[in-house]
């Protein structure tokens, strides 16, 4: 060991380190790190453990420090924006300055935390939960349950001191219609990280006795709007979505709806509103029942009235029809009788007419016949003289003709005109042979007979 060794005091070394680091890291940096532990001290200072994990293995670790005045400021701003307190185990975006303290050693002094980064992280968790529930196909399961006609038996998950519970109960019990509910409180924490296991546990209890209940309500109120990010937790949301009874939520906030509220059968903004909804379902049952009574009264009366009227008019109709039928039958009989009488008379009259005309015809035909014959006779009488005169005249004419002929042929009348007849031996001369000269001839005239002798005979044309 030589004495020329330079011996530094610890303080000198540490101071030197501090000086070096201070020189080297003068600026502040934005660092993304998981706040493993917050380690808030009563003094108001906090010394969070910051880590970086890779597959659950710590790859880097360093302590942080937030001084009292910084912490107050940072925390207030964070809650304002994120609506959640700073939470261990979450990754934060930190503005840090590397500091080295002689006694406390190396640490990152946290000057600020970006709340918007955390808000984004929360949003991411919400999206993831939604996406997962959707992917698993359970996101609508609770909403697809049949809602009971009357949600009368209610399992309530709430904190027994909560104002939300009392608001809820006040509305239910104080209803003015005597609607009766059966409620049973299943005590649980309803905000912050503890809420997730607490609510899941109560749900599992209720499931054991689910036959005694119609619905589950989760009510919360009066606790402000901070610490509701637990309602985006996948496990809790899954428990609600897959619960066998309809789950109704009334956790009282006005900002972005949580996944739990989205998957619940129904969400009301406040417990009072939820209670009103339940009363409304009772109304929806009660009113139709009331109206059914009225309807039945009026329809019964109407049915009876309609049937009475139909019956009365049918009865009247029947009476009229019977009378009408009888009248028609009577009229038909009367008219047929009348027709019969007329026909009988017509028949007799027509026969009488036939006889009359036959009689007339007999008379006229007889007369015609007689007249005809008589005319024939008259014709004969008229014609007879002419017919008779005819042969007589004919004979007269014939006779006259013959008489004329006789007159013409009488030879005496020829001789009277100077002619004579010469004969020889008592015969008329006929040719040269019958006479010769010397013969004696006799000549007859009208009044003389002369005897002479022939001297000469000469023939004509020789």
């Amino acid at each position, binding site marked *: 060991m030589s004495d020329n060794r330079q011996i530094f005091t610890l303080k000198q070394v540490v101071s030197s380190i501090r000086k070096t680091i201070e020189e080297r890291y003068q600026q502040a940096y934005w660092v993304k790190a998981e706040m493993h532990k917050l380690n808030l001290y009563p003094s108001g200072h906090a010394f969070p453990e910051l880590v970086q994990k890779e597959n659950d293995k710590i790859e880097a670790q360093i302590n942080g420090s937030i001084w009292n005045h910084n912490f107050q400021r940072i925390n207030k701003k964070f809650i304002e924006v994120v609506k959640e307190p700073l939470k261990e185990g979450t990754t934060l975006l930190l503005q840090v300055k590397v500091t080295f303290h002689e006694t406390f050693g190396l640490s990152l002094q946290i000057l600020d935390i970006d709340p918007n980064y955390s808000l984004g992280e929360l949003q991411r968790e919400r999206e993831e939960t939604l996406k997962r529930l959707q992917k698993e196909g359970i996101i609508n399961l609770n909403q697809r349950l049949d809602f009971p006609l009357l949600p009368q038996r209610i399992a309530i998950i709430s904190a027994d001191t909560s104002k939300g519970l009392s608001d809820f109960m006040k509305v239910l019990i104080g209803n003015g219609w005597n609607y009766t509910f059966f409620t049973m409180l299943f005590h649980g924490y309803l905000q912050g990280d503890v809420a997730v296991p607490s609510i899941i546990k109560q749900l599992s209890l209720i499931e054991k006795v689910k036959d005694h209940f119609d619905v589950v309500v989760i009510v919360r109120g009066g606790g402000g709007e901070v610490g509701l990010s637990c309602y985006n937790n996948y496990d809790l949301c899954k428990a609600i979505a897959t619960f066998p009874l309809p789950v109704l939520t009334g956790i009282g906030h006005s900002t972005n709806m949580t996944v739990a509220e989205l998957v619940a059968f129904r969400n009301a903004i406040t417990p009072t509103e939820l209670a009103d909804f339940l009363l409304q379902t009772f109304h929806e049952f009660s009113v139709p029942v009331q109206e059914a009574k009225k309807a039945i009264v009026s329809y019964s009366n109407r049915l009876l009235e309609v049937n009475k009227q139909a019956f009365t008019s049918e009865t009247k109709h029947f009476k009229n029809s019977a009378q009408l039928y009888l009248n028609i039958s009577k009229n038909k009989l009367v008219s047929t009788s009348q027709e019969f009488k007329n026909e009988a008379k017509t028949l007799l009259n027509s026969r009488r007419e036939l006889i009359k005309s036959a009689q007339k015809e007999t008379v006229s035909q007889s007369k015609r016949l007689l007249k005809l014959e008589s005319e024939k006779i008259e014709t004969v009488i008229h014609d007879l003289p002419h017919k008779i005169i005819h042969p007589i005249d004919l004979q007269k004419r014939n*006779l006259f003709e*013959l008489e004329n*002929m006789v007159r013409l*042929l009488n030879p005496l009348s020829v001789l009277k005109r100077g002619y004579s007849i010469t004969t020889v031996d008592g015969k008329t001369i006929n040719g040269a042979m019958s006479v010769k000269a010397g013969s004696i001839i006799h000549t007859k005239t009208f009044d003389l007979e002369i005897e002479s002798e022939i001297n000469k005979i000469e023939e004509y044309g020789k």
Partner: protein
Amino acid sequence: MANEIKYTEAFEELQQIVSDMEDGEITVDELSIKVKRAAELIKICKNKLTATEEDVNLILKELEN
């Protein structure tokens, strides 16, 4: 006796005589005789006709009434 002969026979005989005379086959002597007979027959016929006509007229006149 002359009345015994019928009109028809008398008329036929008359016709015969006329026809004979027309044929010229009768001698003058016969002729005279024939002419005499014809005149006789003509008278007979005429008488018969007149009688018949009177008869008929009588009957017809009766018919008129």
